[in-house]
């Protein structure tokens, strides 16, 4: 159909209450020229190819808008990446910009060839991603609608429960009054009857409150355990954390031996060291003779600053204060002093 639709002149149009489609009185079918005047229930469909009122339900008054909406839908179906897929805001905005370029070109018919090529390359390159994203969107929608339904149901139940409670209360009050009257009528003492009545009422109210409290707690516990995700889903840029490069393994886990009484020299003129350096039997295996020197010097000073007598006395006193009893280790001959 290549006929241009008649321009809408007069705003003699009203919305069809059923379908919500805008109708104007002088809508005319191009083929058979039957006007709406003749046939009020005439529905005009739009052909998506040329956007003439032919085949599909038109949802917007202006067909240009309709066309644009369709184009956007198509583009959106392909370029469906989200903000969470991007690491930086700049990247996301760039992406949006590109998409918008393509859309604009398609709508206004600029560089159609190039744009279509871009479109196709993107589709081919990210086919799988597009599918995944589409699936995710579908799932989200489902879960969202399910959540909403659940909420509505709960609200309904709560309302029901509240109404029921009110009824119960009213009924009880009535009963109580009737009961009191009966008892008065049958000749009981007025005061005692009144007091009893009050007590019974109070008790009933307390019980009911306790019951509701318990019910609420149960519900809260259930909610806590339910698998419903949190009500708020924060959308935003995906925070990608770069994995820290693993530090080289430290076999001593931070312990370091410090020579505090001496500095290791490069060479010692003592003949033992000198001979060992030349001795093939010692050095062939890769043994460093300086190690021996270091070890000897560490041994020379290890314990120099430790005053055994004082420290042992201190330790014994502490042990005594703590009330440690010397254990019998079970040897026949001697009691070992527990030197812990």
């Amino acid at each position, binding site marked *: 159909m290549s006929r241009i639709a008649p321009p809408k002149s007069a705003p003699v149009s009203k919305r069809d209450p059923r379908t919500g489609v805008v109708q104007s009185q002088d809508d005319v079918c191009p083929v058979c020229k039957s006007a709406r005047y003749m046939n009020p229930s005439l529905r005009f469909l739009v052909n998506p190819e040329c956007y003439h009122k032919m085949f599909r339900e038109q949802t917007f008054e202006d067909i240009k808008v309709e066309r644009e909406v369709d184009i956007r839908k198509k583009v959106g179906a392909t370029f469906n990446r989200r903000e969470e897929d991007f690491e930086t805001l700049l990247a996301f905005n760039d992406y949006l910009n590109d998409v918008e370029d393509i859309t604009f070109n398609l709508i206004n018919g600029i560089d159609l060839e190039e744009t279509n090529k871009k479109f196709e390359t993107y589709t081919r390159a990210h086919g799988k991603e597009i599918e995944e994203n589409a699936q995710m969107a579908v799932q989200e929608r489902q879960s969202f609608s399910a959540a909403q339904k659940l909420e509505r149901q709960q609200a309904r139940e709560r309302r029901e429960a509240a109404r029921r409670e009110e009824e119960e209360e009213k009924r009880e009050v009535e009963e109580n009054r009737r009961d009191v009257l009966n008892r008065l009528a049958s000749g009981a003492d007025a005061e005692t009857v009144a007091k009893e009545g009050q007590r019974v009422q109070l008790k009933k109210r307390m019980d009911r409150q306790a019951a509701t409290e318990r019910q609420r707690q149960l519900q809260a516990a259930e909610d806590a355990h339910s698998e419903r995700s949190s009500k708020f889903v924060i959308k935003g840029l995906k925070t990608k954390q770069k994995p820290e490069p693993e530090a080289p393994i430290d076999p001593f886990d*931070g*312990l*370091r*031996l*410090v*020579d*505090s*009484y*001496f*500095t290791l*020299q490069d*060479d*010692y*003129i*003592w003949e*033992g*060291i000198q001979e060992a350096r030349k001795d093939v039997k010692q050095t062939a295996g890769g043994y460093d003779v300086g190690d021996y*020197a270091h*070890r*000897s*010097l*560490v*041994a*020379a*000073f*290890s*314990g*120099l*600053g*430790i*005053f*055994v*007598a*004082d*420290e*042992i*006395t201190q330790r*014994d006193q502490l042990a005594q204060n703590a009330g440690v009893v010397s254990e019998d*280790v079970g*040897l*026949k*001959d*001697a*009691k*070992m*002093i527990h*030197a812990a």
Partner: protein
Amino acid sequence: MTQHLNEDDLYRTSSQYRLWSFSPESLATLRRKTHELAITRASQYAPKSKSSLWQDGTAVDCLNAEECLRLVQRYLDQVRTTSDHFKWPVPVKATAAQYLARFYLSNSPLTYPPKEIYKTVLFLACKTEATHMTLSEYARRISTPADEVLAPEYKVMQALRFTLDVRQPYRGLKGVLMELLNLAEGRVGEVECVETGGAKALQAEMLALEVPARTAQTMWSAKAAGKIESKDVMDRINAAYSAARTILDGPALLTDAYFLFTPSQILLAALHLADEPLTSFYLRTKLPLDSDLRPKILTTIAACAELLASFSGSHILSKDERAALEQKLEGCRDPSTRDLVGSHAVAKRGGDGGEEAEEKARKKKAAREKHLKEGDDLFGPSLNGKG
């Protein structure tokens, strides 16, 4: 998160520091307690003993604490000579002596006479210090049955609380020697936290050191004429080293030095006795003059040196005295530990008494054989064990 350990922290992790270091009071208390325990035990087995020494019923003729100590010391010396006889390296000697000393902190000679223990201790030491000799060879060379050597071993291990490491001063002494020689050569300039004038100044100071006192143990004496050269200083250092080494070999092992001081302090004390000016000079380069540990360290070293110097070879029991004491010991020792070999064998077998265990084993074997035979029988094994 780095944690810095210095050499003192390393020593604090050793079992020698944690379990086998005492103050003089706690050492005395421990020994006294051990001895008292042995005496009370002795009064229990006294009436059973057939020896004539017990006729008056009281434990008068037991060895007293002093005699026990001297007997143990005698055997420390014996351990040393035996180790030399085997020509083992000096760590074995020190380790064995320490094992014996530690053993007799918690046990008394009244229960385990040292004569039966010291061979085991020496064997254990040679295994620990990586100069292992096979048991048969060892037993042959000291003309003892191999069982006797092995029998007290577990007891010894228990008494040592299974800590076999003995920190010794010998390697440290070599380290000090190395450093002193380098100092004399003028190679050591900077030392941590200590103000030195530089390598040359230190060397000059060494050359100008005063001569060791007459009472010093070193063999070195200053040349009468001519100035001292670095070669002379090196001779002096070597002489001091060998003198210190002799001290460490002897008095250090035969006194309580290892219990009361750390190996570092022991070796510096020995060096102090050998050549006092040299040691003070060395310590001057090691400990800054204003550090608050310095006076304390110096007093500790002086105390240790006193302990080492106060020992003399004449303290050790002579052969006759030892024999006399052992005779006395024979009369008052614990009879239940007399047969160490037997009790060791029983313990190994894990049985209560030898004969009962054998009976049971035989019965079991017979029952098993019978069951097997019945299985081959034409009509199968008997039901319920009855015919």
